[in-house]
């Protein structure tokens, strides 16, 4: 474990975190173009994050602590995934601690906690969102 390795590790995670909203914006643009809509601005996710930091958080009545904890768990799992995958540097000290199977496990952890949070409130809409996000193989039109 060298100092350069640790520095490149931190830099890589920071870069992944900084550029992640850009990817979301770009994917949303492509999705809009593919369905013949006019695309939202590329930097919209950044503005959304800034807006959400000034707004109040609204939590549904009856939401358990699982619902509050889930965003942090998903964020932590994604940060770990960004630290494992060699995108900026190959000499990553943390990459030795986990391989591709552990990466899949991290994504599964995020998906699992997301599904738990979706079912936590108890309304059907949360489960619908969970189904739309977690299993893209089933289109909503086939859910009769």
């Amino acid at each position, binding site marked *: 474990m060298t100092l350069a390795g640790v520095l490149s590790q931190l830099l890589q995670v920071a870069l992944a975190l900084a550029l992640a909203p850009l990817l979301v914006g770009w994917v949303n643009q492509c999705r809009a173009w593919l369905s013949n809509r006019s695309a939202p601005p590329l930097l919209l996710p950044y503005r959304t994050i800034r807006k959400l930091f000034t707004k109040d958080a609204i*939590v549904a009545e009856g939401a358990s602590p699982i619902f509050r904890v889930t965003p*942090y*768990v998903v964020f*932590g799992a994604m*940060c770990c995934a960004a630290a494992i995958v060699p995108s900026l540097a190959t000499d990553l000290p943390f990459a030795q601690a986990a391989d591709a*199977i552990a990466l899949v496990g991290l994504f599964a952890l995020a998906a699992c906690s997301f599904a738990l949070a979706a079912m936590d409130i108890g*309304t059907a*809409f949360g489960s619908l969102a969970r*189904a739309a996000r977690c299993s893209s*193989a089933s289109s909503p039109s086939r859910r009769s």
Partner: protein
Amino acid sequence: MLLIGSGANIPADNWLLLAPINEDRSSYSPLIVLVVIVGVVLLTVQIVHRYYHGRVRRAPAWDCGYPLQTPRMQDTAEGFGQPIRQVFEPFFRIERELPSPFDSAPRYRMRVHDRAWRALYEPIAKAAEFLARIAGLIQQGRIGVYLTYSFCTLLALLVFVR
């Protein structure tokens, strides 16, 4: 090439690291991963608490503008499991009866058949039954017939041994 390593080939000097084959190819350290995840989560909580004003409101869950909700509207096990079943639909033969959405006392019925069972195991079982039925033809249940079998076997053996 060693595909499946000789047991857990853990280096003796590094008990943290789990390396099934070779440290260069794949290694896993559950403790480090756990520590990093927990550390990132705690750090994120700290940062969010520092920069976020922390106003949290409690409100009723979104009901799509339809406040009169009945238990009939909740997400069912069918709704939960159906996507997974649709993913694996090619492997199973599924018969299902779904009730009308306006049915107040709905009844679900579903039967799932294994395609591999019909395609693979049933022919083998039928062939075995067929062979058993042919073999059963020589079993007449009469002592005279069995004595004749023994006699024929003895004669055949004598012919071969001679």
